[in-house]
């Protein structure tokens, strides 16, 4: 650009400080383009997530990892738009003096959710171990009472773990249900085989549902002039973050999910939001269905595991040595399904945790950068 234009934008810059009027046409246009591109990317990525292949059913482990990838990509773009070559003073003025701290507050809540979910993956892993016991018992040929008893024990523990009331890691009622062998009543120790306590390692009063609820609170789409400026991608990023956290909580068991909100106040007319809203509604429907039956997480592999485990429990209930050939065949089928699920879990759970950890670190880093910028912007102009 020639000297005049350069001078124009330089002067325009100073006038921001004096008049709070955005005057830099050239730079502003570039920004608008970037924002549009960002929102197009968001739309594309979420539409991809909405049409998963067979291997990646919605809310399966691999789908969740894809979702986390989407988050990381969107976040990187968002940070670039907001922070690169940004005059710090701009971000400390209205409306950003409200929007940015709100975003950062939500980010902190997201961090706690990441921790809770990482923890929740441990309980999924525990279910995997129990399933593996059942598998190794029922893989014996021929199956006898001993193997069946063994498998049943493990499966009942498994079902109890799946249907655990999220509120309390060691719900006494469900453990009593799981052990049908009457034991020495004088035994003050735990009932034999009580599955190990799933202490959530989060604060006692912390509730995933409430946390999500509080992130949605005050989430208002920008209107009017704001809708075409920086507030727009900020809103978008907020929505993405909330959605990702919400999906994780819906999928993976973590403390206190009763009352998980199922509705997001995102206006439908926003172009970039269509696929996201569609996904959200689909998952919310599933959630409402499940809520009536019990609190199993919506993780695809867990749902499949639950089904197979239940069928196998029915099988063990009706088993009599040497067993009906047809039923044995059916059971073998379920065992194979469980084996497959365990294999997926064995390969996928640790990477999932690592992925969530990566998201955690990124949010921390991003928050630090925003805080630095805000600090710079709040220093008095000497």
């Amino acid at each position: 650009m020639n000297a005049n234009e350069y001078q124009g934008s330089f002067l325009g810059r100073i006038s921001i400080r004096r008049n709070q009027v955005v005057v830099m046409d050239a730079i502003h246009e570039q920004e608008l383009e970037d924002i549009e591109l960002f929102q197009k990317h968001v739309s594309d990525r979420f539409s991809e997530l909405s049409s998963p292949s067979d291997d990646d059913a919605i809310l399966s482990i691999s789908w969740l990892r894809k979702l986390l990838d989407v988050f990381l990509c969107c976040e990187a773009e968002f940070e670039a738009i907001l922070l690169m070559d940004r005059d710090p003073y701009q971000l400390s003025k209205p409306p950003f003096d409200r929007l940015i701290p709100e975003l950062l507050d939500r980010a902190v809540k997201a961090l706690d959710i990441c921790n809770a979910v990482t923890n929740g993956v441990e309980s999924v892993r525990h279910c995997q171990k129990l399933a593996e016991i059942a598998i190794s018992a029922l893989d014996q040929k021929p199956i006898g009472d001993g193997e069946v008893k063994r498998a049943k024990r493990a499966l009942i523990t498994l079902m109890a773990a799946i249907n655990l009331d999220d509120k309390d890691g060691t719900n006494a009622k469900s453990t009593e249900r799981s052990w049908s062998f009457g034991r020495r009543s004088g035994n003050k120790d735990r009932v034999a085989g009580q599955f190990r306590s799933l202490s959530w390692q989060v604060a006692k009063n912390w509730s995933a549902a409430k946390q999500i609820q509080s992130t949605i609170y005050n989430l208002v789409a920008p209107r009017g002039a704001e809708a075409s400026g920086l507030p727009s991608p900020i809103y978008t990023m907020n929505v993405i973050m909330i959605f990702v956290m919400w999906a994780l909580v819906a999928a993976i068991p973590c403390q206190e999910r009763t009352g998980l909100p199922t509705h997001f106040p995102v206006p439908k007319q926003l172009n970039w939001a269509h696929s996201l809203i569609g996904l959200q509604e689909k998952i919310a429907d599933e959630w409402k269905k499940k809520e009536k039956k019990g609190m199993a997480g919506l993780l695809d592999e867990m749902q499949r595991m639950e089904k197979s485990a239940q069928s196998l429990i029915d099988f063990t209930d009706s088993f009599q040595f040497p067993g009906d050939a047809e039923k044995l065949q059916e059971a073998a089928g379920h065992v194979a399904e469980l084996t497959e699920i365990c294999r997926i879990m064995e390969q996928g759970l640790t990477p999932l945790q690592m992925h969530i950890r990566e998201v955690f670190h990124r949010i921390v880093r991003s928050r630090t950068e925003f805080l630095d910028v805000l600090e710079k912007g709040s220093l008095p102009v000497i």
Partner: protein
Amino acid sequence: MDGCQSTEGDLHVVAAAHHIVKALGATKNLTDDLRKILIDLDTHLSMITSDTDSKGGRGFVDVEEQLKQAERKILSWESDPMMIWDSGPREASEYIATVYEIQTLVDGLRRLSVHENREQKELLHRAMSVLQTAMSRLEEELIHILVQHRQQFEPKHMSSRSTRRDVVYDESFVSVEDETVKETSSRNCPSDEIGECIVDLVCADVIPDIKSIAKVMFTSNYGPEFCEAFIGVRKEALEQYSAVTEELSIEDVLKMEWTSMSSKMNKWTWSMKMIVQVYLASEKRFCDLVLGDFGSVSSFCFLEISKATILCLLNFGEAIAMGPHQPEKLFRLLDMYETLADLPQDIDTLFSEEASSFVRLQFHVLLERFGVSSTAAFEAFQVAISSNGSLYPFPGGGVHPLNKYVMNYIRMLPEYCNILNLLLKDQHVDVADQVTDPDNGPNLSLSTSCPMACHLRSITSSLESNLYRKSQLYKDEALQHIFLMNNIHYLVQKVKGSELRLFFGDEWIRKHNGKFQQHAKNYERATWSSVICFLKDDNPGSSSVSKSTFKEQCKGFRIAFEEVYKTQTSWCVPDPQLREDLRISTSLKVILAYRTFLGRNLAHIEDKCVKHTVEHVEKLLLDLFEGSPRSLRNSRRW
């Protein structure tokens, strides 16, 4: 031996051998292993004879009989309200022996071509069922033993380091007092003595029992159930202990106010050491003792038992490191950093497997973050000093609270010398006060040129600049000098009276002594020159002056003196020694001049214009700098 045709002669040998085995089996005091071998042999021999009789025959009846007996034993315990391991070692080892018997039967039955023979199939099935019952019971026994024989873990040094006074950063600086910040900066805290220390988390006597249960369960392929039960109980034990550190969400931590955050950071520092160096080290040893024979199972179980707790501790650390880096946090942060810095080897040893690498990783990341946070807090401190502004002059000219805060703050830094030198190594600092002191002996970290020393000098330099700016708020030049004299004196005293002197060096001390002395002199000049002026002898040659001149001089001196008195009695020189020195110095000048003046004009002394005797003036001078304003107006009628 399976399936081979035996001759009559062979059968006799086998029968004889079988007989011997049975006889040996009846002897008492058999070890578990020996008993197992004999049972094994017995069964093998039974099998051989059973082979010759395809319809089952005598050998097979033996097997069935054995199974019946074993089954009876196992099932009889099922209806017994007692725990086997509570009933005595004989019962326990008998039970285990029975289980091994069943195992052997199962192995034997499996080795035969089971698929054809229906009876064998049924026997196998029955044996497996009994085995499962036994395994289930063993699991229960295991849990019982682990719970009953758990040792209470009483950490000896429950007190945290809260004896250290917290330096509170407060707008009004009123919370910092010199007197209470005594020698609590000594590093003699019990928690430093922890080191590595292995304790018995479970009574050592029962370890053989647990091992024998482990062995029998693992050989029956019930290892997973053993691990489930074992991990469950041990995990619960650890979590009960570590409830000392409550779980807090990051949000809660970021919102916490300082005093509770400080105490939690303290608790954390102590817990971290205790848990890693003592509890987890002991737990790992316990797992190794019990499960060492089973390869990677031991470290797998240890990881499962410990990871939730260690991650929870690390998460709290992350939350703290994320928070704003206010200066008052520095010492707690350094404590936490130091704690972590002491532990990498322990962590690496405890979590040495591939599977536990994420724990190591998180630990190292956190260590780094703390380094960054500590440095940031230190920088925030330095910024706070230079940006601390005042609108109004500090009344009385005494030691400014900022000075007190800063000096008391940095007095505690030498304790963290090693860590700070590490952190500040690459930090650039403007050292206004270049000292050329040679190193104090071979200990480099105590030299006046180590990074921390440079930063310390930079801090005091910044403080001095700030104090200088504050002194400019006084209209009265004399008060400016009093203020600076007081404050620089205070600074020097603090340095001299603590470990700081090793870092600042004698040169610096000497130089600053000179500074405050200079201000004292400046004060004297500013105040008393004009007063003493009245007492000057304009005509040194003549013997005396006229009466009226004398009267005027007297009056002038008195008014000036009383003015100074009125003003400067409300000024403050807190340090008694300094006050004394200043008075003496002032006194010498003033009294000398006054006495000389009076002496020169003896002729006129009877006049009432001399209102104050020399002694009186001397006495009045003692009232100066007491901080309580007085006036001579009302005391005497002029």
